[in-house]
């Protein structure tokens, strides 16, 4: 029997299990604040993973993914404030439905174009949402945003809540594992998608859309499907981010946040599966420390981005893989 192309599953599962175990043990060693930072990193990683299904695998650069992140976050805020439902599972369900509907609508429009036109269309539509969140302050709280009260939040259908003394600490350590599990599921799901026949078809569209059509791949419909999946992953990230941040503001809908999602993905390397994950976690630390150490943090981030693009265009993961390959060949 011929050998199969593609990754060796058992070895991959071992590596993944090791990585998951390290992530699971980390909070015991790194303290409360670092754990909280890592939760942010993991949520952004889910967003970047979704974003990269479009950029890395389908060849479409969305400059409007803030819309889906924001849609997830605002839906959670609305559900808690207006429906007085504090179960995280119901919030996730509601947020996913909302980001599904939004990305299906926006995606349907955007995939009519490619290249820079796609990018601008995605940007313009995300700005519609931002301007509405900004102006309809009686619904969205305007620039003040909406508070997401985490002391009322319940996880696992009410099994866990965060009231009384030590609630914050309990929240961080519990929520870390909650997000970690969802992150691992998201990674597994995305891994299967990009290695499925559908994932191969997307890569074919990225490489050569004309030929993809001539082997019978319905190019536009698959781009749309990829857009919706991508939007829902980014939406899930926004959903998980909302209680962690405790507040949603229009900033997460504004276009520079879309730029940050692009940044994370390129930082890690958009040609690899793990690039966006590594990039998102790294970007989060980079931004937090840049903000903490200097009021000119944008300058620091901008310089990092410029240097990355000029010198290390394959990103952190791409560069490391290249170096490892060199070492192995010696």
């Amino acid at each position: 029997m011929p050998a199969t192309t593609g990754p060796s599953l058992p070895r991959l599962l071992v590596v993944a299990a090791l990585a998951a175990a390290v992530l699971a043990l980390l909070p015991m060693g790194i303290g409360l604040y670092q754990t909280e930072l890592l939760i942010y990193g993991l949520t952004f990683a889910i967003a970047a993973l979704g974003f990269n299904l479009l950029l890395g695998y389908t060849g479409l650069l969305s400059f409007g993914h803030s819309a889906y992140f924001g849609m997830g976050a605002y839906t959670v805020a609305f559900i808690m404030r207006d429906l007085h439902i504090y179960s995280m599972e119901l919030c996730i369900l509601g947020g996913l439905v909302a980001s599904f509907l939004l990305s299906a609508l926006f995606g349907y429009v955007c995939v009519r174009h490619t290249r820079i036109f796609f990018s601008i269309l995605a940007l313009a539509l995300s700005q519609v949402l931002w301007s509405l969140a900004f102006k309809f302050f009686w619904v969205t709280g305007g620039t003040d945003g909406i508070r997401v009260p985490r002391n009322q939040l319940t996880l696992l259908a009410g099994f866990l809540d965060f009231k009384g003394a030590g609630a914050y600490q309990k929240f961080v350590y519990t929520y870390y594992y909650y997000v970690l599990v969802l992150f691992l599921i998201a990674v597994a799901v995305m891994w299967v998608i990009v290695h499925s026949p559908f994932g191969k078809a997307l890569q074919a569209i990225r490489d050569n859309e004309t030929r993809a059509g001539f082997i019978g791949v319905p190019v536009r419909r698959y781009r749309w499907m990829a857009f919706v999946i991508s939007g829902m992953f980014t939406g899930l990230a926004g959903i998980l981010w909302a209680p962690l941040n405790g507040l949603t503001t229009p900033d997460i809908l504004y276009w520079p946040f879309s730029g940050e999602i692009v940044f994370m993905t390129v930082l890690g390397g958009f040609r690899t599966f793990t690039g966006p994950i590594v990039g998102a976690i790294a970007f989060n630390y980079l931004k937090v420390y840049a903000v903490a150490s200097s009021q000119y943090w944008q300058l620091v981030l901008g310089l990092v981005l410029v240097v990355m693009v000029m010198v290390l265009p394959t990103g952190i993961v791409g560069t490391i893989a290249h170096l490892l390959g060199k070492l192995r060949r010696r």
Partner: protein
Amino acid sequence: MNGEKMDTSIIQVLNSIFYAAVLFLIAAGLSLIYGVMRIVNLAHGTLYALGAYVSAWAVGSVFGATAGGNWVLAGQLLLLPIGAFAIAAVGAVIEPTLLRPLYRRPEEYVLLITFGLLMILEDVMKLLFGGTPLSAGSILDSMGSMRIGELLYPTYNLLVIGVGIASAIGLWAFVYRTRFGVILRATSQDRRMASALGLNVGRVYVQAFAIGCFMAGLGGAVVVPAQAAVLGMGVDALILAFVVIVIGGLGSLEGALVGALIVSFVRTAGIQFFPEIELAVLYLIAAAVLLIRPTGLFGRV
């Protein structure tokens, strides 16, 4: 319609044209750069803001903050465009150092580097000029106001409208009536052909980029006596300039003019009649134009 309402309408029309003039300057630069080099410069709005800061700072440091006599005003007005020249110089440095090495790579990289530039320049402004708004309002004050019926309108705004019109005519003549314009258009249509004909494409690129930046800087310079330069103004302006060139057609000069007028009048009407969705309507118009006619109203196919 009674007299006062009439006067208000006239002022609103003037405001729209004033706003369109500024927007045209920014958008024409963005469009020129895209038209010739196929680059979408995300830092363009920030360059506009930087132009505003530089002009306000120069006028403020030389003449102080208070209004003076006619000679002072003349000096201030002469000094005002310095922001435009400063930004053109910045552009002339950026293109060969940061953009040129990336032309062989996928277009995403150029887009990203301009995003990085945006972040850098936003903080450079903060670093140089601090967080406080900076204005050249003394010019506006010295020039006084004119009467429109019962209402007053700043004379300076009319000057800006004049600059807008003059720039539109000047740019048009430059692109369609000069030798350099021919070279510019040839390069924009077929880079390799232009290069085969012996044109120095590298030089055309740096010149086109610098001129585009000059336009952004000029937009900032003329707006700063009327509106103070503040942090974040560039990020907002970029998206509006985008809407303008998407409506008018990416790379089209006429398109930038018509797009700027459409956006300004829709905004003015929006602020009065549908303030909540004023911006949303603009973005939706841009999206609709992209869908129905991706080359814009004036774009080439």
